[in-house]
Structure formats: C-alpha cells, structure tokens
C-alpha cells in the first residue's frame, strides 16, 4: 500500500517538475507543452465528443488484430507441434517471415485492402501472430513426459491428449505470449494508422502534427497509454482466471 502511495506521489512530483520547468523555463508550447495545457486539451477533446470515435476505432482495430493474430498463431502452433514434418518444413520460413518488418508492408496492404481499418487489422494480426505461435510451440513441447505417458497408458486419443493434457499444460506459456501480443497489438494499431489510417488515435496524432498541435499529441499519448494499460490489465485478469489452479502454492 505504501509503495502504491509512493508511486502515485512520484507521478505527481514528475508532473509538478514538468509544469514548473515549462513555466519557469519559458519552454515553447510547440516543443513541450505544460501538463496543465495537455490535460485541458484532453478534457476538451473528451467533452466535445471528438475523442471517443477515434478511441473506439483504435480499440476495435487492436481487438480484431489481436483476436485474429492469436487465433491463427495458436492454430499454427498446434498444427506445427502435432505434425513434426510440417514443423521442419515450415518453421524456418515462418521465422524468416517474422524478420521482415511488418510495418514496412503497410503501403502494400493499403493497395491490397484499401484505406480504413482492414490494413491496420492485418498488420496488427501479423505482429500478434508470432508470440502466440512461438509460445504455443514452446508450451506444447514442454509437456511433462510422465503425464504424456499417463495419457498413453489411459488410451487417450491424440485429440483428447491435445485438449485435456497438452493445451492445459501449455496454457501458462501461451498466456505469457498473449501478454506480449497485447502490448504489440497497440503498436500495430497505432503505427498502422500512421501509414494508412483516416481515423483512430494514430491518425489523430498525424493530424495534430500537421497543425503543430503538440498539446493534442501529448493528450493522445496519454489516451494510447491508458488504452494499452486497460488491455494489458484485461490480459492479466484473464490469465489469473484461467491459471487459478495451475501450480497453486
């Protein structure tokens, strides 16, 4: 509890220092706006109703990209684990494909999918795919051999072994991948909008930059940070819920 209070006080002290530096040092608002001006801009964006549609669009892109990337990543991880021939065949190419900076594909995706949410969702999904696939593969490979032998002894089918032993055993590792994917999905959504978005928080930053509104840009950073923290906390909560019986005590 005292740590939390100290943590909150640290934030207040930093904001106070920033405000004092801007006011006393006559820092131009274009370079670094004072926190008071940032919060005033943020408030006006909220009450005017301008912020909410952009927030909704980015959150939707993030959620859709995350869901798509996670489902495909999980499915690919399971497939590559079950079919070792496919793993040997495809895994090097999948790793190679991940080395390509996916944001660089943005302009191409605009040609393929047009402007709007689709290219951003695809970029986000591509970014989220890899941590899920890698962690699924790692988690499934780490299933205790004695427990595999138990399932063999009990005459379990491959599907039963997958659903009732391997996936539950791998769940902690898979969910750690999900946490990484959640953080990356925000990067995917915001930067995807930089490239091809007409709406959303990333597109709003580009719009604010074009009119040199630094206060608005800072205000949007705050909203993006809060959005990321909400998604991350949701991932933590899901993890806690799903793993409540794993290795307790």
């Amino acid at each position, binding site marked *: 509890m005292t740590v939390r209070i100290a943590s909150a006080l640290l934030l207040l002290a930093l904001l106070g220092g920033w405000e004092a530096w801007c006011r006393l040092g006559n820092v131009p608002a274009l370079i670094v706006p004072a926190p008071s001006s940032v919060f005033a801009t943020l408030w006006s964006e909220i009450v005017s109703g301008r912020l909410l549609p952009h927030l909704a669009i980015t959150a939707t892109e993030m959620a859709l990209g995350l869901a798509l990337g996670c489902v495909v990543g999980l499915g690919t991880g399971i497939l590559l684990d079950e079919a070792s021939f496919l793993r040997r065949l495809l895994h090097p190419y999948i790793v190679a494909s991940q080395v390509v900076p996916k944001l660089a594909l943005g302009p191409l995706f605009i040609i393929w999918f047009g402007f709007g949410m689709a290219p951003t969702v695809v970029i986000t999904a591509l970014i989220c795919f890899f941590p899920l696939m890698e962690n699924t593969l790692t988690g499934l490979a780490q299933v205790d051999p004695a427990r595999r032998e138990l399932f063999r002894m009990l005459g379990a089918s491959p599907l039963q072994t997958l659903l009732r032993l391997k996936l539950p055993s791998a769940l902690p590792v898979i969910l750690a991948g999900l946490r990484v994917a959640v953080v990356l999905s925000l990067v995917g959504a915001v930067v995807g909008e930089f490239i091809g978005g007409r709406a959303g928080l990333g597109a709003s930053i580009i719009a604010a930059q074009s009119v040199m509104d630094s206060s608005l840009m800072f205000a949007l950073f705050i909203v993006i940070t809060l959005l990321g923290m909400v998604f991350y906390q949701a991932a933590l909560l899901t993890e806690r819920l799903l793993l409540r*019986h794993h290795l307790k005590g």
Partner: protein
Amino acid sequence: MSTERHGEGFVAIEQASYRYGAEAPIVDRVDWAIPRGAFHCLIGRSGSGKTTLLKLAAGLLAPDEGCVRIDGAALEGPGTRIGFVFQQPTLLDWLSVIDNVLLPLSLKRSLRAEDREKARELLDLVSLGDYAHRHPAQLSGGQQSRVAVARALIAEPDLLLLDEPFAALDALTREELQDDLLALCAMQATTVLFVTHDITEAVYLADRVAIMAAGRLHHELAVDLPRPRNRAMRYGQAFNTLCLELRQAMDGAP
C-alpha cells in the same frame, strides 16, 4: 538361484528383452509369471532395468524379443485392464482431486452418477474424502500419491503396476500408504507388480520378491508372512530374516 517360471501366470513375461539402440540390453531375456491376485515386487538398484521391465508389462514399450501375455493373450499396448502408478503422482494441476481420480473413466465415456460415487468411496478409503474438491497443489506429497493410487484403481484394472510410487515420501507416510495399497488391492483382488529399491517395502508388501540386476532376474524369494500384514510384523524376526536374505542376495548380484 533359479529364476524359472512358475507355471502359467495371469501375467506371463516370456524371454522378454529390450534395448535402447545398439547398447547392451536393459532388459535381458526375463521370464516371470504372476498368478491372478498375487502381489509381486521387483527390487533392484537404479539402472537395473526394473522400470523398463514394468513398462514392458504395461505395454508402454514393446519387447525386442520375447513377449508379455496377460490372461493368455499377447499384450499389444496399454489398455484399461492395466493400471499404472508412476514415480511422481503425475496429477493434473488444473483438475480437482475427484476429477483427477475420474480421469481414466472420463477419457473413455461420459461420467455417470455412480462413477462419482465410486470415486468418492475410493477417496474415503485413502482418507481423502474431505479433499475431493481441492486441487493437487493444495495437497501434501503423500496425499498426492494417494490420489494417484485411487486414480489407478478407479477403472478396476485386473493388473496394477507401480513404479516406486512412494520413493519420495517420508518413512511414516510411506508405511501408511503401503497399508492403504494392500487394503485396496485385497478388496478388488488386484494382481500387482510393484517396483521398488526399498527392501523392507518389498518384503512388507509382496507375496514374492525378485531381484533385478543388469537387466536380469537373479534371485527370487517367497514371502510367507501371513495376511493381512500389520505394522507389528515389521519388527518381527521372520520379517527381518527375509530382509537380511534379500540384502545378501542383492550384494551378491552383479
């Protein structure tokens, strides 16, 4: 000492050999027979091949030579007629105790009310009736081993194979579990092959003990202590004479 077969047993291991790759066989032409309802122990040092022999008897491994017969039929692979208890309890952390016990049945078919009743009875017999809805991580090592034994017995196997299941437990808990195991197996007249490296455990549990060393059976000993066994026997002269004989035979084995 002779290790010849004792007629046709319910479990018959006939000239079974198993090797990993090109190495010397880990199980070398073993003959062994267990009559229906008997409790046999295999004792030996680490690396003597006892776990491999047990896996051959379970159908988890197939012998390179020879064969394993259960009730006259050659064993093709693991089946519901055989229960297996591993060195570690190997419980599933995400399932409750009762669901762990029911696992062998729930993998075969949808559960019925009487299955749950039976699981509860088994848990009562191993003094875990109040723990049915806890999770494995909330149990002690001894309690987890009890759950593993209950799980192996829920499908009423004809043959129960145990691979040093109590090795990691403290001496007192181990003795309690040995009594529980004897009571449970006597109830269902289960045929048992129990692997251990503990001489007193082997003598206390078994009707017959074989010593395994370097992949072969070297010595066998009939344990003629009366049943049911009780703790006082552990301190009797007959018990200690048998332990001494086994110990000397183990020292004499290669």
